[in-house]
């Protein structure tokens, strides 16, 4: 089983994952890129939030302006060593100005949560034994950062200048 962490707390996952060949249920849905391409107009005409789940090889830039129709973009880590989603999240936030939820799903480690947070993830699908305390600790192990990212955190250079 997995749980969802959002805004620093466990949260209810309201999105129903929909297989590519299954009928669309009522309420918020989470679909693949292929399904979105196939049923784009139907999905956007529904009066309910749509989420998309992108594989690590799927660059969100190809969504174009459609990106702003999504309330949720789930970025998949097929294996924790595959770090492409770090760039996808960064691009979504900084370049495409996406303000919805970016959720980390798949195989990632406790030790990656802080990096994910920095590049723009704000929700995590975690194993049951992943506690809020662990989550908070992951974000606070390193106080300062050397480089700007999507979190808007002041860099060490800026802190030096402000001394």
């Amino acid at each position: 089983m997995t749980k969802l962490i959002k805004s620093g707390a466990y949260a209810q996952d309201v999105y129903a994952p929909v297989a590519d060949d299954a009928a669309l249920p009522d309420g918020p849905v989470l679909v693949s890129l292929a399904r979105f391409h196939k049923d784009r107009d139907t999905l956007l005409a529904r009066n309910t939030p749509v989420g998309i789940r992108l594989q690590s090889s799927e660059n969100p830039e190809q969504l174009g302006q459609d990106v702003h129709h999504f309330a949720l973009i789930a970025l998949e880590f097929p294996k924790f060593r595959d770090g492409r989603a770090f760039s996808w999240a960064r691009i979504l936030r900084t370049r495409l100005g996406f303000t919805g939820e970016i959720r980390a799903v798949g195989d990632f480690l406790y030790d990656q949560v802080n990096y994910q947070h920095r590049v723009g993830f704000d929700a995590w699908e975690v194993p049951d034994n992943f506690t809020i305390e662990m989550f908070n600790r992951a974000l606070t192990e390193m106080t300062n950062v050397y480089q700007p990212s999507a979190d808007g955190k002041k860099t060490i250079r800026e802190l030096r200048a402000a001394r």
Partner: protein
Amino acid sequence: MLNTLVKQVDPNMYRYDEFDAQFVGERVEQFAGQVARRLSGELTEDQFKPLRLMNGLYLQLHAYMLRVAVPYGTLSSKQMRKLAHIARTYDKDFGHFTTRTNLQFNWIKLVDVPAILRELADVEMHCIQTSGNCVRNVTADQFAGATDEEIEDPRPLAEIIRQWSSLHPEFVFLARKFKIAVGACEKDRAALLYHDMAVQIVKNAQGRIGYKVMAGGGMGRTPYIAHVMSEFVEREDILAYLEAVLRVYNQDSRRDNIHKQRIKILINAIGPEEMRKRVAREFDEIKRAGTLQLPQDELDRITAYFAPPKFETGLSDEMPEAGTDFANWVKTNVSKHRAPGYAIATITLKTPGQVPGDATSAQMDIIADLMDQFSVGEVRVTHEQNLVLPHVRKKDLPAIYAKLKELDFAAPNAGLITDIIACPGLDYCDLANARSIPIAQTIAKKFENLDRQHQIGELKIKISGCINACGHHHAGHIGILGVDKKGVEFYQLVLGGSGAEDASIGEIMGPGFGEHEIADAVERVVNVYIAQRKDGERFLDTYRRLGMAPFKDAAYEKAAA
């Protein structure tokens, strides 16, 4: 042991402020937590592996190996003494200087790692990103700040890159490792063109200083020479440009075959023109976002740390006389310094019979004393696994030479045939197919005669114990690649490579030689050169003129007999 007569000198190099100290301190505790989770079994080896690699910890054939970063190869005497202390306390009393200008300890216990990291942090050192699929230790020309050939000291930019790339959240799980080097002159002592990315400090037609950026070089099983990405990047844009290259790499690199995941494979698959286009687009976007500019005052602030030492004036620029041995050493190991009366002295860790790059803790301590006494407390580590005293007075050279002789580090062979690069090979490495160190030792012994070495002149031999090419065999004038044929070690010859400004990839001669044949084969190849060379030609020049055939004929001739 600190010689009580020697006063510790603090060189002009980057110093941690409270932010750097806190960053490294927290990183140490974070890693200590990861070690504890591994020891308790919470992390599997598979999960622990990328975490420990990101902090320079390898599991080798016999033990853990810890690789300590020596940013752009610059060490203070205080740091050198700490490395000696760690070797003495936690290892088998020696350390190994690597081709990435790092220092590695080969016999480390996992439980000791947090304590070692804390000791390193005390002298402003760390192991961050010395391995793993992230941006590795940034290297630079070892003559930085001392040579008159450079446009400016490349180390301030290297330090800026070090900070920017430290735990960069977007680029710590890249497809493969990523190595960056910085140079500042036409003469390339840092093997720029064999790097994933390289920055050369240049002046444009208007006399403005900026950066030429190259990418896609590399050794390994598929060697490539780097392509130029941009001839001129403005100073304030350099981090934005480097970030653009890394982002394109992170997005577009293959992830399905570990042997095809370096940036060189991407660039050569899509072509340098397409790569430049993709990078340019990212670069524009990053520039527009406007958060990564490098302000001039920041560059000035970092540059100030590396201010040249106060050079004495009025010194004689004559080389002192101190006998034939000394004169021979000067010929190969002493280079021109920017200040009159000063010189740059290379200490080759390559006395024939020695393990290339190894130094005992006692040797490290004495080198630290030499640094304090004669070179403003500073030493450089070179990618050829040597050390350099960057700022010595010519009049002190005889005393330095005498001390090095006691240490067995006075081989007058910098750039000569016995100044061999060798990877740790099968003696230590679990990737290796063959031993490298004994081959280096045998060849060095064979050519030990100094007159002969000088007669042969510049000849770079580089030995790798497997296709991963850590011993840079592709870039050797004579490269040697160890292979395994049904459980027996064989050695292939690779001729005509260069890691310098005239970079080229060596050509494989043919089937390998047995471990007892390879040194003789090298000798026959060298003899062809001696017989055929024209005025002033180096081995490499003669090879380039004649091609493989005469060398190949000679190498196999006697082997077959």
